[in-house]
């Protein structure tokens, strides 16, 4: 499904050259749940953003379903992103003026396909155990509820790939477990998941674990 070859990302911070990604090779089959662990600043989030078409690599290629993501125009990349990929961020990333339901259906609203999606948005909220929170504003929801709304939003377009960046950061143990159970369910339904986290204890949820260290990606030795 995804093949990454010789991926390098480099930018300058004043006189200093920073290389968050250096010659990364990676591949992911359909239906995998890959957990990428690593310390803060190891390049995990940058890698996820490159996979999602959010930031252009300095060199290397990212092929998604046989298409070179960075050979496309920005608009084409946005279309591929909205059709195939769901994002879950470290922070909930909900829009404050919108209700939980409106946040869930936002990706399809941006695609202009919002008609008849309210029902699916409701279904997803029910699946997340938030059936009574559809009309609530983000400011009235708890941390766990916010995260679950964000996961529902990632699922609204029925994506084949979920990219999750530290989705359990800042959550208490119980909420973390609830969220990871949701990811397990999503994976069980056939969705490919690539999740980055510094928390190695989440490894049992994944079908494969990789480790990122100083911009390089490898299968862990231990």
């Amino acid at each position, binding site marked *: 499904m995804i093949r990454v070859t010789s991926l390098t990302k480099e930018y300058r911070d004043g006189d200093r050259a920073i290389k968050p990604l250096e010659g990364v090779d990676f591949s992911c089959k359909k239906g995998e749940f890959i957990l990428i662990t690593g310390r803060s600043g190891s390049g995990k989030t*940058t890698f996820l953003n490159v996979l999602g078409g*959010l*930031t252009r690599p300095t060199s290397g290629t990212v092929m998604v379903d046989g298409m070179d993501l960075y050979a496309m125009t920005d608009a084409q990349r*946005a*279309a591929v*992103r*909205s*059709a195939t990929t769901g*994002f879950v961020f470290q922070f909930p990333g909900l829009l404050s003026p919108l209700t939980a339901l409106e946040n869930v259906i936002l990706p399809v609203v*941006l695609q202009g396909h919002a008609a008849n999606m309210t029902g699916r948005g409701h279904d997803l909220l029910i699946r997340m155990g938030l059936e009574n929170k559809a009309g609530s504003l983000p400011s009235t929801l708890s941390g766990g509820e916010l995260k679950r709304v964000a996961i529902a939003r990632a699922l609204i377009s029925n994506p084949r790939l979920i990219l999750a960046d530290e989705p359990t950061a800042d959550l208490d143990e119980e909420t973390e477990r609830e969220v990871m159970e949701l990811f397990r369910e999503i994976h069980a339904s056939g969705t490919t998941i690539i999740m980055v986290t510094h928390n190695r204890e989440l490894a049992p949820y994944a079908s494969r674990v990789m480790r990122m260290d100083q911009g390089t990606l490898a299968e862990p030795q231990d």
Partner: protein
Amino acid sequence: MIRLILKNILYRPVRNGALILSFAFIAASLFSGNYLTTGAASSINEEISQLGADLIVVPEQYRAEGEAVLLRGEPSTFFFDQEVLDRVEHVDGVARAAPQIYIATLPADCCSDLVQLIAIDPSRDFTIAPWLKESRKQPLGKDEIIVGSQIVGDVGATRYFYGHAFTIAGTLRPTGTGVDRTVFLRAEDARVMAAESAITAYEPVTLPEGGISVILVKVAHPDTVADIARNITEQVTGTKVISPGSLVSQVAGRLSSITRLLAMAAVIATLVTLPLIALISVMATQERVREIGILRALGATRAKIFCLIFGETVLVAAIGGCIGIAVSSVLLVLFQEYIAFTVGIPLSVPTGGSLFLSAASAVILTTAIGGIAAILPAIKAAGMDPSEAIRSGDL
């Protein structure tokens, strides 16, 4: 998308409320200036059409009084000799000439202010006669009067001027000019009223034998109005000619200071608010960097982000523009008489077409100002790197 824009606007009520007020002020200034100019012009045109005259000849020394009667309904009494009428009638190109006698009343029971009586000669008149014909009314009978729209009293009611009883035979349509505060009567009734006033009025009025106040002139060919006005002034000594054009330019002169003031207010408001609005848009965009990044991650193209940021300010500007026009319209209509009196101009509600045009152009201008202010922040937002945007900023 529109829903998202509206939600964003409603979510920041204070900031967007302040912006709406600024845009409303700009639109109100633009619209009011236009309203006053077109309202005054429409009023004069209505009056000219009501009077049915192309030119009005007045005694040389009473030109200002004549204009005051026509524009503002300030009552006056003045005369020149009837022989002037013969000389005006003989000027080439004059098709018809109708004399009128202007008499300022004492305070009357119909009105809080003084009233202008205009006595007409029914055999020559073309001011009231067409109206009577149009309204299928009989020619003006003995002691019957036709009153302007601001004279209180229904048809059939009795009104007393200088102690003489008159019956209201009809009411003219509003013009926003002096005609609205005018009473038309027959010259022979006016002379009877004047003769009786020595006994019936505590301050009698005297009409000189053969005296007339103005001569209304209709020209044979409308395109020769200016030439005939010049010929009358040259050939009939002691007269001045008031034309619709001169009334309009006099009103324009009176209005120029207020329209200049309104235009300056609009320009200053624009100059002050444009950078302010641009700054607020930049700040609002800075505050929403992460939101923009998330929207990009969720599939929004650069064009959509541009539309979102640009659309918000443009919509705020359009809402402000509409509110400004609505509020200024209400105020202008409510205080129309006060404004007309204070500025000394005739004023009526402009025609639907010109009103719509003024309102539409004010909204378009205001919206354009909003668009100019928003364009750079919108381009900047659309050009943001999504991953950088997500990494930085708050939501």
